[in-house]
């Protein structure tokens, strides 16, 4: 039975992505007791699945390493993975949270030696790679996963694979008897940092994501470009593994669209510009890159980066929301539409089309533990009605990492204001 030590001066942070980690660490490093709850088996969230950041083209794992070290070192921080908040009772300054812990089937004896993975046979789609690759039924989600502990896929429990894994472990780290449990503990304030999920590309029917192998999403492309990713960093066509030198990026794929997401997801323009550099780095003069856009939203200092990418000869910008994509006989996705600057109709065949997929907030208003003020787009609005619950990062709006971190740092202060007033009241 898991024990969580907490009081009504404890801050509960929900979501262990960049926003949740930031909020939790900033509060903990100010001397506050923090419990961080993450649904996945590891921290880092979506940024752990990015290859590079715009505009610096540096590596998310670099900052993640610092944050992970900060969390390993900090005595004020309790981390619960594979955990979800199922209920929150009480009011600002005096809540009781109920957190559901799913079984990992691996205890903290695990040394991440990898013997169980070798022993297990069953394979599943690798969610870390958005299903582009496979992973074993016993797995370390990715090399830098923190906590550095293996996970057993629940689907192998009760199969011979589970016993093989157990037999292979020299450290008695595999516990097949683990079962779901719910822990209740007090907290004074809650920071909701559940981030975002990529919009379901199959719903954007004209672009044929569900019909055309060589139409993929920007998040999938990010995994593809990562040298530690499913293709070892090679930019290729899913249909035939052929090098993808002619790549089209389609902006506002699901965003700014009343048929899909009402809001502008803010990051997609920059993400595509960044991904242009992946293709250009990979194929140089042989690259042929097209960006189909409505407005390029390279806001503030990031304009520099837009200029930098515009300077790449192999990159074309076409002001158009393409009408449709159809596959030709060779499986090339052909993008149809009109260049609205002068009305030139086009039907351009590419090796690969990348949909700059929109950000859908991961805030489910029906299952949300307390009453909360949401906007029409589904993001949490700051409001006194929310009591001691504060959104951080992309739960509050479509934000890039820089803005998510700023916002999360602020959220930490909002929570501290609550627990400090509790402390003052009790002093």
């Amino acid at each position, binding site marked *: 039975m898991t024990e969580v030590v907490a009081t009504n001066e404890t801050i509960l942070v929900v979501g262990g992505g960049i926003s949740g980690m930031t909020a939790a660490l900033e509060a903990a490093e100010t001397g506050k007791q923090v419990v961080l709850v993450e649904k996945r088996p590891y921290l880092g969230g979506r940024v752990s699945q990015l290859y590079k950041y715009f505009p610096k083209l*540096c590596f998310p794992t*670099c900052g993640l390493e610092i944050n992970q070290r900060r969390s390993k070192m900090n005595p004020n921080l309790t981390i619960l993975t594979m955990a979800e908040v199922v209920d929150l009772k009480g009011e600002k300054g005096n809540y009781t949270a109920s957190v559901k812990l799913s079984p990992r089937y691996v205890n903290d004896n695990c040394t991440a030696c990898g013997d169980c993975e070798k022993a297990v046979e069953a394979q599943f789609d690798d969610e870390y790679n958005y299903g582009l690759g496979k992973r074993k039924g016993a797995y370390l989600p990715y*090399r830098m996963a923190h906590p550095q502990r293996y996970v057993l896929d629940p689907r192998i429990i009760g199969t011979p694979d589970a016993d093989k894994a157990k037999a292979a472990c020299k450290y008695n780290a595999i516990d097949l008897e683990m079962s779901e449990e719910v822990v209740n503990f007090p907290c004074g304030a809650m920071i909701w940092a559940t981030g975002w999920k990529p919009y379901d590309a199959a719903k954007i029917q004209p672009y044929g994501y569900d019909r055309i192998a060589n139409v993929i999403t920007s998040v999938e492309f990010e995994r593809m470009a990562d040298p530690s990713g499913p293709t070892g960093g090679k930019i290729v066509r899913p249909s035939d593994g052929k090098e993808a030198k002619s790549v089209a990026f389609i902006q506002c794929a699901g965003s700014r669209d009343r048929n899909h997401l009402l809001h502008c997801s803010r990051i997609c323009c920059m993400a595509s510009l960044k991904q242009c550099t992946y293709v250009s780095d990979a194929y140089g003069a042989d690259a042929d890159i097209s960006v189909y856009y409505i407005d*390029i939203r390279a*806001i503030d200092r990031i*304009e520099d980066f837009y200029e930098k990418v515009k300077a790449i000869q192999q990159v074309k910008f076409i002001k158009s929301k393409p009408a449709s994509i159809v596959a030709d006989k060779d499986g090339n996705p052909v993008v149809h539409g009109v260049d609205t600057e002068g009305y030139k109709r086009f039907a351009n065949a590419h090796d690969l089309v990348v949909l700059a997929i929109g950000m859908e907030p991961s805030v489910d208003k029906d299952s949300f533990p307390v009453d909360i003020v*949401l906007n029409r787009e589904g993001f949490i609005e700051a409001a006194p009605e929310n009591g001691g619950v504060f959104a951080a990062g992309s739960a509050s709006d479509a934000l890039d990492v820089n803005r998510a971190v700023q916002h999360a740092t602020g959220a930490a202060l909002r929570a501290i204001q609550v627990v400090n007033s509790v402390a003052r009241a009790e002093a």
Partner: protein
Amino acid sequence: MADEKKFAGYICTGCGIGERLDAKQLQSVMTREGKIANCKQHEMLCSAEGVKLIRDDIDAGNATHIVIAACSRRAKVEAFSFTDVAMSRANLREGVIWLRPEGDEHQETTQEMADDYIRMACAEVKFLKVPKPSGEQALNKTLLVVGGGVTGMTSALEAAKAGYPVHLAAEEGRLGGVWADLYKRVPFRAAALGVPNGRDVDLPQPEDPGIDAMIAEIEASPLITVHLNAKITRTSGAPGRFAADISTESGGTVTENFGAIVQATDFKPYDANQLPEFAYGKTPDVVTNFELEKLAKAANGGPLKRPSDGKEVKSVAFIQCAGQRSTKPGHLPYCSGFCCTESIKQAMYFKAQNPGCDTTVLFDDLRTPGAAGEDFYRSGQQAMVTFTKGKASEVVSAGGSLKVKFKDLILNEDTEMEADLVVLATGQVPHVGPDPYAQLAVDMAETEEEKAAARKKLEVAPPSILNLDYRQGTDLPQLKHGFVDSHFICFPYETRRTGIYAAGPVRRPMDMKQAIEDAVGATMKAIQAAENAARGSGAHPRVGDLSYPSFRKEGCTQCKRCTVECPFGAINEDEQRYPQFNESRCRRCGTCMGACPVRVISFENYSIDTVGQQIKAVDMPDEFSEKPRILALACENDAYPALDMAAMAGERLSPFARVVPVRCLGSVSLSWITDALNSGYDGIVLMGCRRDDDYQCHFVRGSAMAAERLSKVGDTLQQLNLEVERVQVFEVAITDIKRAAQLINDMAATVEKIGMSPFKF
């Protein structure tokens, strides 16, 4: 047992260490050579039982300095968390067996590798001390907020809400700053939930700016002291003990002490006189977006009048990106981010009091991001604001009205429109002090052009805002376009002056909502800095590190390398021109230690010796052994993890490599290099982080400083008659999993080519 050192060593045989290596041999190395008699083995040291084994020794007073020979220092950190003793970890798992192939032919060299890591850990631990806080300062909860705009007011209010007193210093005679003239603000919220499938009804409208309410709140707060017409004429000290002279126009100066500082000086409106093509200054009917707010506020809901003749405005054109996103001299190269929604809002002013007024927004890319942004765009369209994708080229006044010439990018034609009033959507210029390194830039400039450019920048440098009495200049360092430097992705608030945080448009252009949110975050960091200073704990990224730099005064030659190289300007010079370390300004990167030619600077848990002795401890086979030794000094945040992951990925590393993690390449002392060469190392590989404008060094300049220092290492090599290839410096990222190992293997190949070092004794 006060200062009596009791050494203990623990060798883990789990994870294959026991199978792949001769544990007896390891133990004898530790006891005989490492001189650690109290040495134990365990088949799973990280287990509760193994940890207890160690804990018991410590609690029994039998261990004050311990060596753990097991996995990487990055693994099992929580299990091996013995904060009350000095600890060194020998990396036998990721560092040796996972990087080495199995098989008898490899056994000897692999074992030697492991033996050396034991020797190195034993050597290191002897020179480690458990850091104790200096108690240099007590808790000072009071914050200084510089800037009376929305950003500064927010910072003050939020700090007060958390129970922290604030002094708010405003340049102007009233609060509100650049935002004071706003008639209305762009709505903060997106459309409310419950409007059926996103129909374009009930969309957000321009709303009260809320400035007066803020001012009232500030005046009502017992924790906030406001200084109007105030300048900061001197700032000294460090987090927890800042002292600032606040001088007001009346001539009076008060000196107050602060725990931390927030600079929220916002922006200055762009000077539109640099836009003659748009007839600014030629006719009063061309105004900037900032000036329009004044007109709107004066009209106060009534019809907006033309400045020239007071005629009611019936048609207005907004020119977006005026003097922005342009490389023309005098223009701003960046996008100010706020102007698109600002113009929509202002167009709606006209529509609100006269729906018949023609309002046209000439834009290139309309930038209304997020939920609230896109909703407000539709809100403007609902109000029948016309959006025309076009580039304005010229404004000419023609008989009582204005002609705006532009290229319609959609209809692809050069055309023009008439308007009673033209509004230029001009940008934000960060309101910051002079770049402290402007002078340095002149000195460092290589070409004459660069020098000239740097000089120009120096001439037009604005007056100081903080007047820091720091050795490295009066204000916060800048990165680009005058915006304050920080890792603006992962750690946006980490400026290069510990305890002083920039908030709002001084960091990057932003609208009011963002400035408010940004202020909350900066305030969080300021509060944290004050609290950590009181604990004697380091600031980001080494929060909790209680060590701090100390130096042997008698050895110091006052060369000033440390005071010049510190990336955070933490070190001053005292009246006798000795360095003055200001512990709580220090980020514990060790760059000063690396800079010091006479090796007098050290930390209790990181010093010339803790690394130097490891280098010496390595067993050095003779010239004819065909067993070269390659030293790799790797940044602990990027290169070292990359090597760990190379091990997990099954990469292979030369058995002749000996890898030592360093806090930052900036902390690398040339003495380590020369000692290593003198003691017979055949090659040295230094791996640090990217150091250009897009630097990844988490100590900002550490890696760059190191590179500069090491550029001179060639001379050392020549003096020793050694080939220059024997020492190489690389930028290595945490993702360079293959490459990190490859670079070391390449050095092994180089050594094979050029031969062993003659300096083996």
